[in-house]
């Protein structure tokens, strides 16, 4: 619910510090027991989000948190056209990954039409002669849905996966995994009654020298990490949504030289170094760069993830003041295009 002095609902995109929010909602038990109502609204005149807890006996606790406006970014990724789709209870996957030593940065997922295997990233274990190489097979029977179009091996950031699984265990829905070939992003999706979350992770490209799906994501070349938010495709079910949802164009396959899906993104909660493109751009041609770093010999995986929450309640709301938010392009992409080359490793 967004209010401003004119009492019209605005579509506010902002970011809040996690350190500010977490302590407010810390003691879940005591919150559930003592609080009758919680009200969250914004005071855009003061750039604050106000969270009010109404306790018994007329006691009211108010928290004012400053927010920062953020320029939304777009993510070009359509999970529905991915070759490989899996669905599994997060608990099962969490049990599988617990065996990996915590020092590992990356993990490799290898699938065949019959098998699912998580294993230590080859690149890492080769470097450290002391590292344990682990493999964990999960039978296809353990999955709620198991569709593999082609044998694939992708490598991505382990820490992100652990975090996502921890988060998803709080919901009771299975987690869906969508992915394609190495280099193309991997999407992890949770669709609960109350929450839909999409996490998009970069994967390590096979050969750093070749362009791997340059269209997959708009990404600044300079940044190591960016968090982008993907808009949820028009969820008609119910939605007084906190964030806007709209898909203006039909989803397309993510390949070079094709037009993008127009998905206006919600929020950028990441790297301040990220440069945002100005103006409305509804098409992006060869813009994004590969996920791998161009520093030779570097194993640094450019990681980013993207998460969207849509709250679900009884009123439907579809007010958008800015349906087309600016499309973020790789800051150097224009120069790259001018130079006629991608800067890739």
């Amino acid at each position, binding site marked *: 619910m967004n209010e401003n002095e004119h009492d019209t609902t605005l579509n506010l995109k902002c970011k809040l510090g996690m350190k500010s929010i977490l302590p407010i909602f810390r003691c879940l038990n005591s919150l559930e027991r003592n609080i009758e109502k919680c009200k969250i609204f914004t005071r855009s005149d003061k750039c604050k989000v106000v969270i009010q807890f109404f306790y018994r006996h007329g006691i009211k606790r108010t928290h004012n948190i400053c927010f920062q406006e953020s320029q939304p970014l777009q993510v070009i990724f359509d999970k529905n056209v991915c070759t490989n789709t899996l669905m599994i209870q997060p608990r*099962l996957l969490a049990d599988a990954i617990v*065996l990996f030593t915590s020092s590992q940065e990356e993990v490799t997922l290898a699938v065949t039409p019959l098998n699912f295997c998580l294993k230590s990233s080859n690149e890492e274990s080769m470097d450290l002669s*002391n590292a344990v*190489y*682990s493999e*964990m*097979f999960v*039978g*296809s029977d353990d999955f709620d849905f198991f569709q593999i179009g082609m044998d694939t091996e992708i490598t991505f950031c382990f820490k992100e996966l652990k975090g996502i699984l921890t988060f998803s265990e709080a919901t009771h829905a299975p987690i869906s995994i969508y992915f394609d070939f190495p280099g193309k992003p991997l999407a992890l999706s949770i669709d609960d009654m109350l929450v839909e979350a999409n996490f998009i992770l970069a994967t390590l490209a096979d050969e750093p020298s070749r362009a791997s799906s340059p269209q997959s994501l708009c990404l600044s070349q300079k940044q190591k990490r960016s968090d982008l938010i993907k808009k949820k495709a028009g969820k008609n079910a119910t939605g007084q949504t906190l964030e806007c949802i709209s898909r203006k164009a039909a989803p397309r396959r993510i390949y070079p030289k094709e037009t993008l899906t127009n998905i206006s993104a919600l929020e950028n909660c990441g790297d301040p170094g990220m440069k945002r493109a100005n103006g409305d751009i509804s098409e992006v041609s060869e813009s994004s760069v590969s996920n791998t770093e161009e520093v030779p010999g570097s194993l640094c995986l450019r990681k980013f993830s993207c998460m969207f929450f849509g709250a679900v309640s009884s009123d439907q709301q579809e007010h958008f003041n800015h349906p087309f938010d600016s499309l973020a392009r790789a800051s150097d992409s224009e120069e790259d295009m001018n130079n006629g080359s991608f800067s890739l490793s």
Partner: protein
Amino acid sequence: MKFRAKIVDGACLNHFTRISNMIAKLAKTCTLRISPDKLNFILCDKLANGGVSMWCELEQENFFSEFQMEGFSAENNEIYLELTSENLSRALKTAQNARALKIKLTNKHFPCLTVSVELFSMSNSSRIATHDIPIKVIPRKLWKDLQEPMVPDPDVSIYLPVLKTMKSVVEKMKNISSHLVIEANLDGELNLKIETELVCVTTHFKDLGNPPLASESTSQDRNPEHMAEVHIDIRKLLQFLAGQQVNPTKALCNIVTNKMVHFDLLHEDVSLQYFIPALS
């Protein structure tokens, strides 16, 4: 050289995991010696270890349902491997409720001890996890340094009090001093003493009991109340005590005055000997 072994019994697996955890706490890197009847975890008294040495022995048939090994040669039918103890204990941790555990010596890219765990899973398909733990094969000429340490004739031999109690005492003492004196007598008394300029702290343990001494003559000569003492580094003692998560079946301590203290523990059927030298 070949080695393959399998554990299918849940209790044996848990016990083996506990032993491995203990070793991981006692020694960062250790030597695993595989022989036809036994497995040994060895830490030899190099300067790098601070002079501490450890000898842990278990009978393989108490753990493994299958055990095959082929050592260096027919005359020297043993295998000595060096590994990072934590790698093994972490791999075993995943085998907590496993159907079966297999360990074998492999050579993928580099020599490894491959631990393969077959887990129960909800559906019919079984879940298999494999860990390749890198190891170094220790050459034959270095084997002589890794033999069972000689246990010298102790001046006093005494049963230890509850290790958890000892550990909490030593933990607090560590904040005050880095040297500790262990002394004990043949009357069942053990003292832990620390001394600084400002303060002396002694913890007394009584009625501990003494095992029968090897040689009767020495026990008759000595006054049973006479204390045999040794000064040791408190951190080494603490490391030893911290490794004992479970109270052992038997625990005794042998003191050789001003030379060393030797701890002899028995965890069910696994024996652990730990030697801490005296501070010079």
